[in-house]
């Protein structure tokens, strides 16, 4: 056990802090994705290597060698200073890593630079009405016609489709092939003729995801990533990237501290909530699990660093991380009692109403990105080596 990052990294941490002290005031605070402030900050971060750090210079990145500890230090320092770490979203966190692995040179030079600068916003078109957990059952079709694919079908739950410039989309190109081998991965602009986006209001009251309809949408064949029929494999390079990032234990720890503060402030019958033995017990029990998940995350980091494997530590992190966070947010609502119900424009809302919003938002994350039940299938099959369910005879 050696928990120190060592002197070279401590020096690097000082460097990051120095940057934050000098430039931190330029960071956006609540300005939108498209605001000049957010875009200027993103360019500043790339210039200094605090965003797109390991993306090669040729594709507009900073071009540093991947170094897990440096990335961790940057994330920690920005979180501690409460400064925006730059733009995220599905383009930056999912598409760019995929293109780096399997994209053509032309795709890399065309799409990566504007994406990392925040000038090209993406949405992820995977789920369909008939293909959720069973994603490979998707039916949106793409048929070759000259130099184009012609796309017809429907996607659903497409987050940010109403804001996005482009979509990365799974379509069926080989209808005769077994279901996992007939899928392709296409990129096309959301302004293409034949696309209709209909917003869906989610339970928090916001229309953040959408239905997306395609009618004879033409996509040049060179905008396929990977080969025809290999879309499932291509998508899976990204799903791996996604799973780790949901239910981040460090964010949960920050939230736990806010909950603790809330319990110190709030009173029931004139006594602080924190002094109530039942609430105290629940809080301490939650704290044990938050701590354990954070340490599990350190173990994952260390394993990556030292080339060691502990597959279960990774496989459980989406399930446990999102469930724990949802529980934590729900506990805060219990702490507030009737006050915790305040919502919408109600001025009595505590902490901006974030407990209710996050309580629901994290239920969304329990469902999205592979439901908890699907996670348990994965844990039992890949982690514990248990057999798959027998297929029903057709």
């Amino acid at each position, binding site marked *: 056990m050696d928990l120190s990052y060592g002197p070279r990294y401590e020096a690097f941490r000082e460097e990051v802090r120095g940057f934050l002290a000098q430039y931190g005031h330029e960071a956006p605070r609540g300005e939108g994705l498209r605001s000049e402030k957010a875009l200027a900050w993103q360019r500043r971060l790339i210039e200094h290597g605090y965003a797109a750090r390991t993306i090669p210079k040729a594709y507009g990145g900073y071009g540093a060698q991947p170094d897990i500890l440096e990335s961790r230090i940057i994330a920690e320092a920005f979180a501690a200073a409460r400064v925006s770490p730059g733009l995220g979203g599905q383009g930056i966190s999912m598409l760019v890593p995929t293109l780096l692995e399997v994209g053509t040179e032309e795709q890399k030079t065309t799409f990566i630079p504007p994406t990392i600068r925040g000038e090209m916003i993406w949405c992820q078109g995977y789920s369909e009405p008939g293909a959720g957990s069973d994603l490979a059952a998707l039916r949106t079709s793409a048929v070759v016609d000259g130099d184009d694919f012609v796309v017809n079908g429907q996607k659903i739950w497409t987050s940010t489709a109403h804001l996005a410039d482009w979509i990365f989309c799974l379509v069926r190109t080989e209808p005769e092939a077994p279901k996992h081998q007939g899928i392709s991965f296409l990129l096309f602009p959301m302004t293409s003729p034949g696309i209709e986006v209909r917003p869906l209001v989610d339970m928090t009251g916001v229309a953040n995801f959408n239905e997306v309809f395609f009618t004879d949408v033409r996509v040049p064949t060179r905008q396929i990533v990977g080969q025809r029929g290999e879309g499932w494999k291509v998508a899976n390079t990204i799903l791996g990237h996604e799973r780790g990032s949901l239910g981040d234990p460090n964010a949960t720890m920050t939230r736990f501290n806010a909950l603790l503060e809330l319990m110190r402030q709030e009173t029931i019958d004139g006594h602080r909530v924190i002094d109530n033995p039942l609430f105290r017990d629940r809080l301490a*029990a939650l704290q044990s699990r938050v701590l354990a998940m954070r340490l599990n995350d350190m173990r994952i980091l260390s394993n990556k660093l030292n080339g060691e494997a502990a597959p279960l530590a990774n496989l459980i992190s989406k399930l446990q991380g999102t469930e724990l966070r949802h529980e934590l947010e729900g506990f805060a609502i219990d702490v507030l009692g009737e006050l915790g119900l305040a919502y919408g424009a109600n001025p009595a809302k505590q902490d901006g109403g974030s407990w209710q919003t996050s309580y629901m938002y994290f239920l969304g994350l329990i469902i999205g990105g592979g439901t908890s039940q699907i996670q348990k299938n994965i844990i039992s099959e890949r982690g514990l080596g248990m057999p798959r369910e027998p297929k029903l005879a057709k």
Partner: protein
Amino acid sequence: MKFGLSEDQTLLDATVRRLLADQIPLDAVRRYAEGDGDQENWNALCELGLGGVLVPESAGGLGLGILDAAVLAEALGYYVTPAPFLGSAVLFPRALTQAGLSEVEPWHGRLGEALSGTLRVGVALPQAGGQRGRDGVQAAGQALSGTVTLALDDAAQAYLVGADDGALWWVGADAPGFTREAFETVDRTRRSVKITLSECPATLLSQNPAVLADLRAVAWVMLAADTLGASRAMLEKAVAYAGEREQFNRPIATFQAVKHMCAEMAAEIEPCTALVWYAAHCQDHLPQEAATTAGHAKALLGDVGQFVAKTATEVHGGMGFTDLVGLHYWFKRIGFNRQCFGNPQRVRAELAELQGW
């Protein structure tokens, strides 16, 4: 940076597990449960160095730390091994080091006896889980009086005794005024005793309550590690059994209800591994976090262990409920560890205090 076990620790773990699997199989556990002693097992483990894990090299031990001891405790829990490890090999040397006595005679010599397995040291900490009934120990001069309802090890030659004022004492089992009687518990893999002291001559090890508090924290980590090992064993047994047992013409491991029970156990157990390692590491290297992380490990493993003990038994169906497969030894050991020296509710109340909530 490395969060995890060193090569040496991994090797130690593998060596001990090999010995436990070969020499102390479930049959040996059953014999102990039916009344045999555990001294032979303990001698074999001491030959491997288990008794000296924390004993300074100057006294012939391995001079290792609490994380190493936790690795061993996890292995012992995995095999539900009867052995006086916690008292003799962990708390006794730890107490002497903390009290600054390990280089002083007669303690230095006694450490040598403990590491060879000839001296067994039991543990009597009546306040560790909160005072029950009239339990407690008071000192008058160099003599102790009082009762300890549950003390560890029925075959020890001496006991570490925590007094109500926070002092730590050493009492010989042959001292006048010392009596012990069996305190039968549900866990038959380790034997406990009730101790009565009546003006029993004793030796003061430390008057500093911090020494006693440290012992309790270390005990919490060890019990958590023991439960971690036992829980992991139960999960593995459940997965293996589910792969063999067939119902409705297929292995029950193909039923999603069964798979999800196993996945839930794994999901609960896995983060506990990191927590136990970290808590153990803190005992030697991060004193400011030692007490809280020990408490978190003890409380969380108490809960996770209970869940796993129940769920793994259910996966085995009626077979899990029988004496035949012996799964109940794990179930009961986990149950013992949950209550011993403070159950989760008690420990969490202290965690809240410790953090000034």
